[in-house]
C-alpha cells in the first residue's frame, strides 16, 4: 500500500495518429488537492479521459493505490471510488436533475441516501429535483455536474474545468464544496483548470501541462500565482 492514491507514469495516449499525451508523469497523494493547469489543447482533458478509461493508454501506466488500472472500463473505475466531472457535453439536458443524478448510481435503491449527501453542499438541487437539467443556469449546471460526481462518495475525484464560464460567486461555492468534502472524508482531488485564482485557492499543489507533458510543478504558496501565470498567459 502506498500513500499515492493516483500515480501516472510516462503516460502516452491520443486520438487517431496523434499522441496528445507524450509521457505524462504525475502523482496525487491521499487527501491532497492538485491543480493541473495549462492552456487549451495541451492535453489536460485527454489526461482525465485516459485515466477514466475512455481513451486507450498507448504507453506508460496508470495506478490506483499502486496497482495498475489501465485498460479498465469507466464502470470499473467508478465502482472503485473514482468520481469524474467531465467538461464536454456533461449533462443530459432533457433529463431531470433527479435522473441525471440517478444515472451516476448503479442501483436506484441507494438514491435517497446519495441525494442527502450531495444535498449538503448543494441544497438547491434537492428542492428542484424534477427540473430539466437543460433549464438550469450555467453555474447551476456546473454544480449539478459536481454533485453527480460525488454521488458514489468517491475518494478520488477528477474534475475538468468546472469553473469555466461561471460567475465568481458560484466558483466560490464550488471551491467551498470541494474543501468541505476533503475535510469530511479526506478524499484526493485532481482539478484541471484554466482559472488560476480558483485553482490556487483550493489546491495544495499545482502542475502545468504543455504540449502533452508536465513542464513544471510546485506547492501552492505566495509565489505560485506569478510562476503559473507566466506559463499560462500571453
Amino acid at each position: 500500500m502506498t500513500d499515492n492514491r493516483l500515480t501516472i507514469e510516462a503516460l502516452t495516449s491520443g486520438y487517431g495518429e496523434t499522441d496528445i499525451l507524450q509521457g505524462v508523469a504525475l502523482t496525487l497523494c491521499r487527501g491532497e488537492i492538485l491543480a493541473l493547469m495549462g492552456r487549451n489543447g495541451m492535453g489536460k482533458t485527454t489526461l482525465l479521459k485516459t485515466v477514466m478509461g475512455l481513451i486507450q493508454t498507448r504507453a506508460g501506466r496508470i495506478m490506483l493505490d499502486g496497482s495498475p488500472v489501465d485498460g479498465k472500463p469507466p464502470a470499473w473505475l467508478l465502482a472503485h471510488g473514482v468520481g469524474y466531472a467531465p467538461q464536454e457535453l456533461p449533462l443530459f439536458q432533457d433529463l431531470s436533475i433527479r435522473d441525471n443524478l440517478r444515472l451516476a448510481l448503479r442501483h436506484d435503491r441507494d438514491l435517497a441516501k446519495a441525494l442527502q449527501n450531495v444535498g449538503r453542499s448543494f441544497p438547491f438541487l434537492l428542492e428542484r429535483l424534477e427540473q430539466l437539467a437543460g433549464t438550469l443556469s450555467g453555474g447551476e449546471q456546473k454544480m449539478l455536474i459536481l454533485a453527480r460526481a460525488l454521488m458514489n462518495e468517491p475518494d478520488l475525484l477528477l474534475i475538468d474545468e468546472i469553473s469555466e464560464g461561471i460567475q465568481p460567486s458560484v466558483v466560490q461555492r464550488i471551491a467551498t464544496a470541494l474543501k468541505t468534502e476533503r475535510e469530511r472524508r479526506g478524499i484526493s482531488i485532481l482539478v484541471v483548470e484554466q482559472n488560476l485564482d480558483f485553482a490556487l485557492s483550493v489546491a495544495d499543489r499545482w502542475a502545468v501541462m504543455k504540449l502533452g507533458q508536465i513542464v513544471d510543478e510546485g506547492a501552492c504558496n505566495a509565489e505560485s500565482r506569478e510562476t503559473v501565470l507566466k506559463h499560462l498567459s500571453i
Partner: protein
Amino acid sequence: MALLLDITTTAALLFIVSAGLFVIFGVLKIINFAHAAWLTIGAYTTVVATRMGFSPWLSLPLAVFVGGLLGAATEIAIVRPLYRRSLDAILATWGLGVVIVQIITLTFGRDMQMPPALITGTVDVLGMPYSSYRLFLLVAAVIMGLAFVLVLERTRLGLNAQAVIMNETLARALGINTSQVRLVTFMLGSAIAALAGVLLTPLSSVDPTMGISWLIGAFMLVMVSGTSVAALALACLCFGAAQVLVSTWISPILGSVTVAVLCAVVLRLHPKGFARG
C-alpha cells in the same frame, strides 16, 4: 363513423408494426432490415402453435421468446461488428432477412397459411357492427404505447436507454454498460416485432414474404418520428388517416404507398420529421 374507426385502427396497426423497428432505431441508430423477417417469424409461431393444437393466444409469449432469442443472436453476430458501419449494418440485416425468409419457405412451403384468428366476430359500436379484432388491435396498441412510456420513464433500463439515446459517450463515462443496453434493446425490439407478427395474422396473408410489404411503411414512420414515442403515435395517426382516406376515395393501390410517399415528402421539407415540432 366507420371511417373514423378505420383510421384509428389502421393507425394502431401501423404503430404495432413499427414499434419494434422504432425501439432498435432509437437506441442503436441502425435500421434493422431484418424487421420484416421478425414479423414473418412471429406470424409463423402462430402457425406452429395452432398446428400443435395449442390456442393461438399461446403464440403471443412464444413469439416474444423466439424473437428475443433471435434478436440476441443477431445483435451479437451481425450488428455489433458493424456498429461503426451503419449503412453496411442495413445491408447485413437485409441479407439476414433474405436468409430467414428462405428458411421459412424451405420449412413451410411458400403457400399461404391460415391460422385461426385470436378473436373473431364483430361488436356493435354505436349501433354499427365493427370487427372486434380491429378494436382489439386498438387496445393492444394503446397498451403497447403506455408500456413504452412506463418503461422509459419509470425503470432503470428505460433511463439507461434514454441516456444512451441522448449521448452515448457520456453514458459510458458514467459507467453505464452501453453494449448491454444495446443488446437488451435489440432483443426487445425483435421480440416486439415478432409479437406484431402474431397480431398481424388475422389481417394479413401469412406467407414467407408477408413481412416485406409492412417493412417500408414501418421504416418510413420510424424515420419521421426519430426517437419520440409521442411522435411515432402522432405519425401513425396522421399517415394512417391519409392512407385510409386515399384508399377509400381514390384507390386502394395508391393507398398502400401513401405512407411512404408522405413520409418522404415530410422528411424533405422538414428533415427532423415529427420529432421536434
